């Protein structure tokens, strides 16, 4: 069950005032903390910002970066931008799915990975690419995928394991 860390939510509320335009930034903060948007928290956001719950739900389901379900520990984003598509991105995706025991995008049965597709990471010159947590991997080949994911599985790499990879 979800353990609601009120402190984090209060922090998010404190950083943004109650104006409606802060709905998306607040949801982004919550998503970053919990890796999804828990329902009870959405209710609190709705009350706090005085935005009707259906509208909060509408925003939460419209944008790709939000999830209403808990997600795997490591976020694997396989880029399917045009350059990656032309250079075999779909095959990388299929290999990632095979390696994580998935038949489509989603959270792997062992909850280690959530596999997503992303529309373009903007590293087209080095296609095909994918991002795991905050690390972007370039010029991928199918044969490299397993080894790469195993490093995350074994905990050698993880969230913020490599500082500066994305600049924050």
């Amino acid at each position, binding site marked *: 069950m979800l353990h609601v860390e009120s402190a984090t939510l209060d922090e998010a509320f404190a950083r943004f005032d109650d*104006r*409606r*335009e*802060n*709905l*998306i*930034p607040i*949801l*982004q903060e919550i998503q970053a903390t919990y890796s999804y948007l828990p329902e009870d928290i959405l209710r609190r956001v709705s009350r706090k910002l005085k*935005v009707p719950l259906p*509208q909060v739900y*509408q*925003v939460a389901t*419209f*944008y*790709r*970066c*939000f999830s209403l379900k808990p997600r795997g520990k490591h976020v694997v984003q396989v880029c*399917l*931008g*045009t*350059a*990656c*598509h*032309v*250079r*075999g991105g779909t*095959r990388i995706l*299929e*290999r990632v799915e*095979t390696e994580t025991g998935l038949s489509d995008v989603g959270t792997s049965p062992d909850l280690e990975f959530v596999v997503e597709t*992303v*529309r*373009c*990471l*903007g*590293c*087209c*010159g*080095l*296609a095909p*690419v994918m991002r795991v947590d*905050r690390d*972007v*991997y*370039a*010029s991928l*080949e*199918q*044969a490299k995928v397993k080894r790469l994911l195993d490093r995350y599985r074994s905990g050698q790499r993880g969230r913020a394991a*490599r*500082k*500066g*990879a*994305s*600049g*924050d």
Partner: protein
Amino acid sequence: MTDHHDHHAHLTDLEALERCAIHGRATLYPERIKIMVGTATCGNAAGAQEVLDAVREEVEGKHLPYAVAETGCIGWCSQEPLLDVWVPGQPRVTYGRVKAKTVRDILAELPEPKADRALAVMTGDDNPITGRRTSYCNGGDRPEATLNGLPTYAELPLFKRQLRIVMRNCGIVDPSSLEEYAARGGYRALWRALFSLTPREVLQEVQLSGLRGRGGAGFPTGRKWQAVCEATGGPKYIICNADEGDPGAYMDRGVLEGDPHSVIEGMIIGGYTMGAHEGVIYVRDEYPLAVARLSEAILQAQRADLLGKDILGSGFSFNIGITRGAGAFVCGEETALIASIEGRVGEPRPRPPYPAERGLWGKPTCINNVETWATVPVIVQRGGTWLAGIGTPKSKGTKVFSLVGNVTNTALIEVPMGTTLADVVNEIGGGVPAGRVCKAVQTGGPSGGCIPAEQLSLPVDYESLTQAGSIMGSGGMIVMDDRTCMVDIARYFLGFLEDESCGKCFSCRVGTQRMREIVNRISLGQGSEGDLQLLEDLAWLVGETSMCGLGQSAPNPVLTTLRYFRDEYLAHIRDKRCPAKVCKSLITYTIDPVVCNGCGACISPCAGGAITGEKKKLHTIEQAKCTKCGACLEACKFDAVLVN
């Protein structure tokens, strides 16, 4: 990022700006050896952070008196990670595909870098703001010499045709240094606008320049600005559209990560011209590094009196905030983007009223793209007629393109408008990889189309690309070789558009879905000839009856592939054959018994475990298990895997 001292506490006069620039020059062109590593997102993906760590370790560990700096991306993507060495009085030496373990060897050669490991040398840099060239070779009094026979950037096909106005500082300055931006003439245009020009005069320069919006549609920037100037009611807003959603395009990321101050300066000048005091930069969520570098730059500008109240003592106030996107392609459309800033779902609304009249919070708003804003300081500093002298009669200035896909030199490049596609692909890009044939160039993202290789003589300008059925778009240029299936490409873009359609217009929501189903059917070998007519009808309908640009241009990928590659559709339909050998239902993988030497390299990569065979004996693929992943083809070094 490198720490910079707060030399620029308050820039209250021109002298302070000069002082700031002097400090910048001291780090930009120091009197000691300088090592630079390109650490934009793409560089990092290729391992730039490891290279940078290795450089720092070496320099600190051996107490070497070298300066170490980060730069943005110079655009030479295929050679990343890039490391540059600058020895005072000598050209800057560029090393490509640097590995952490080779850093020690490169540094060991200093102060005399050797040619065998390096790619090229930069003998100086051109600055469109000042119109001057800074020579790196002994203060410029000696003819610019290369080093040990290395090609200079000016000789390299990749760089020699480029003209860098938007990317003027990318790969040159440290993006975290306001001083280095100032040293390159930065904020001089803002100064000029605030103290020497009236808002009316700035507007005139922008109009004179003939600049058109770089986000894709090419609306004249001067006309948009005029509309906002003339709009009644306030407060007015300035927005920078950095929701770079087109797949295969990363020009904006390059500028934001490599030279964030150029965008900020452009926006402040825009605010002064149009009487706005608040600006918003809407950056896509997928670009965390761009957000970080922009935030840092905004903070620096605020501390230096370049943003905030009473900028530089001029009496004019302006501030900028950042809004992070949340992953919706349609938010690149201006009315959807505004809705998203306001905290709502990113659904477009009908225009008029245009944002110039009723934009953010219902107030007059000027939305321009990253490249457009970054061009503004150059226009103000050099004059509108200067920019108007570059390009074609109707498309002025330069355009940045991401040259990617099946091309030898994948790169971020900036060329004058009117350069032909052939020059871009074959000369700058070095053509498709050896042994392949160029089939098409895709421009304009999902709103654009595929231009066939026969039409590469087309000049790159707004009108020519539109005439060919594509669009300029934001600047993605994806080269496709003969291994690309055009039916598959149409299916790819339709899948994209179906996913990203906001769903407001029925024709776009359902039309993209139906079109995708039809093209999917064709790719499975289940299409009929009538499907092509149906596709054309549907495409026309979706284009005519959708409200925003996403739906209106959604037919382009389908119509251009149908127009130029109809035979390929027919091969899928009539012969149940995919000529490019891409569509999985129409191909089989087998192993050539004559060529296979039984090395076993294909066995473990096989996703389906379909390949069997003893060592040094012929391997075979069990068709029932083959997932057609193509891993065997990638793994085989002897070309023994056949695709038919």
